[in-house]
């Protein structure tokens, strides 16, 4: 069974064809170099209405790369929540149009389920239930995953997402964008114990995060040192920042595993590529006999394959969306 998956919830325009929820026949993302080379021009960082210019090329490319026509497609899965409404609507409208004229089933997919699902491409034997930590520029969520199509949010950021804190600290230090990989690399040469930054909410009796205060603590420290004429070592600053951030992420995800008595953890989202987070999680999990799974790197960020994957399982469960399927901006907090 082949599913066409469409994803436009944030900046990337993406489409993919996936067979039986597992075999990726194509996975096209507008920000990929291959796509640029093929269609030329500059793909803007901020998408929204720009999705309109790209969506049909991306879908066409996904179909051609997979070597399939619409006769061979069984259903069209599309992200309809959460995200920027203007962006979601473009993928959703394209999906509805194609589903209508080719008489295919339409399936609305939760973007967050997609991120979790990315792990299944690498680990098809992933146990359920498990705990998932989704970390990106826009999300910091701990979820209890009951099945491939259901989850419960156990904790989330109350202010800035973790990836956002990385980006803002990097920008403040003049390191560039995106902050995640830059800080991750620079931190390897620094001393993580050089500065004692706070890990907000680490002792709170819940699974929530707060990274705004950590960001402000770093800015404050750097300003104070600069004012005092002290020569700052950026590597020490980012290594200490990263240590404080990773510490609270790892602690809370382990708390969640204990609370729910599960033995498997998954990581997803763009920050899942962060080596300090991966290493710390692997080490802590090893001590506790927990299994940790990561998605392949390309699958950490937004893509259509993860949406097609969830779409396949929803289809198997008998889920069909009607043509009045709407775009929902918010995260479904319980």
């Amino acid at each position, binding site marked *: 069974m082949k599913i066409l998956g469409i994803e436009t919830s944030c900046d990337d325009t993406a489409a993919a064809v996936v067979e039986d929820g597992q075999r990726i026949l194509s996975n096209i993302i507008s920000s990929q170099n291959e796509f640029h080379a093929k269609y030329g021009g500059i793909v803007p*960082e*901020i998408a929204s209405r720009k999705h309109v210019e790209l969506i049909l090329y991306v879908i066409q490319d996904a179909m051609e790369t997979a070597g399939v026509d619409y006769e061979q497609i069984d259903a069209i899965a599309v992200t309809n929540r959460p995200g920027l409404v203007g962006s979601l609507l473009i993928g959703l409208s394209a999906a509805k149009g194609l589903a209508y004229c080719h008489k295919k089933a339409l399936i609305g997919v939760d973007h967050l389920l997609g991120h979790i699902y990315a792990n299944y491409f690498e680990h098809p034997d992933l146990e359920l239930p498990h705990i998932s930590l989704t970390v990106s520029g826009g999300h910091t969520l701990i979820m209890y995953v009951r099945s491939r199509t259901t989850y419960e949010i156990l904790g989330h950021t109350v202010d800035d997402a973790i*990836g956002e804190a990385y980006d803002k600290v990097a920008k403040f230090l003049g390191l560039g964008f995106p902050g995640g990989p830059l800080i991750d690399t620079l931190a390897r040469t620094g001393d993580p114990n050089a500065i004692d930054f706070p890990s907000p909410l680490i002792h709170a009796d819940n699974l929530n995060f707060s990274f705004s205060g950590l960001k402000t603590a770093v800015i404050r420290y750097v300003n104070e040192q600069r004012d005092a004429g002290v020569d700052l070592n950026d590597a020490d600053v980012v290594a200490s920042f990263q240590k404080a951030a990773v510490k609270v992420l790892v602690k809370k995800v382990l708390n969640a595993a204990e609370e729910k008595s599960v033995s498997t953890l998954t990581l997803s989202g763009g920050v899942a590529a962060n080596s300090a987070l991966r290493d710390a999680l692997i080490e802590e999990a090893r001590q506790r006999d927990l299994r940790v799974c990561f998605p392949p790197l390309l699958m950490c960020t937004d893509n259509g394959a993860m949406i097609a994957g969830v779409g396949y399982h929803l289809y198997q469960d008998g889920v069909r969306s009607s043509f009045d399927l709407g775009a929902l*901006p918010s995260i479904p907090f319980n």
Partner: protein
Amino acid sequence: MELHVKMHSYSAEETFEAGRVVAKGLFPGSVVAFRGDLGAGKTCCAQGIAVGLGVKERSQITSPTFTLIQEYQGRLPIYHFDVYRLTCEEEIYDLGYEEYFYGKGVTLVEWAERIEAILPRDCLEITLQIEKDQSRTLRFYSCNEQYRRVLTFMNAEHV
């Protein structure tokens, strides 16, 4: 723009509270523009306004830096913008900002200086400045009577 109220905040809680009080006077179609450096408390003050407008869970009002716009439902709809990621003013057009700015809700804009040209002249402007002692100076500006009335609820120094 005229300065109407100036106050000092010594904690994130006080900045939040200032926002909560301002919310009392906001009306359909209001636009609140925030200016201030990273970590000055823009999101914190915006959270105060959202809670003041009736959003129940403060923890669900998160930074819209990545998502660009977040919507909440209080006594009025709330459109929380963060234009930090915009690299040029034209990009705001791609977000369909007109439907929000000139709609029936309350629009909150962080990093307003990045979209100077399209910011409505009639708006409430809040600047947050980080002082040497780490306190914040909050200044409230407007150029119209309707917004000036919004600030009458504030127990702070009226200029």
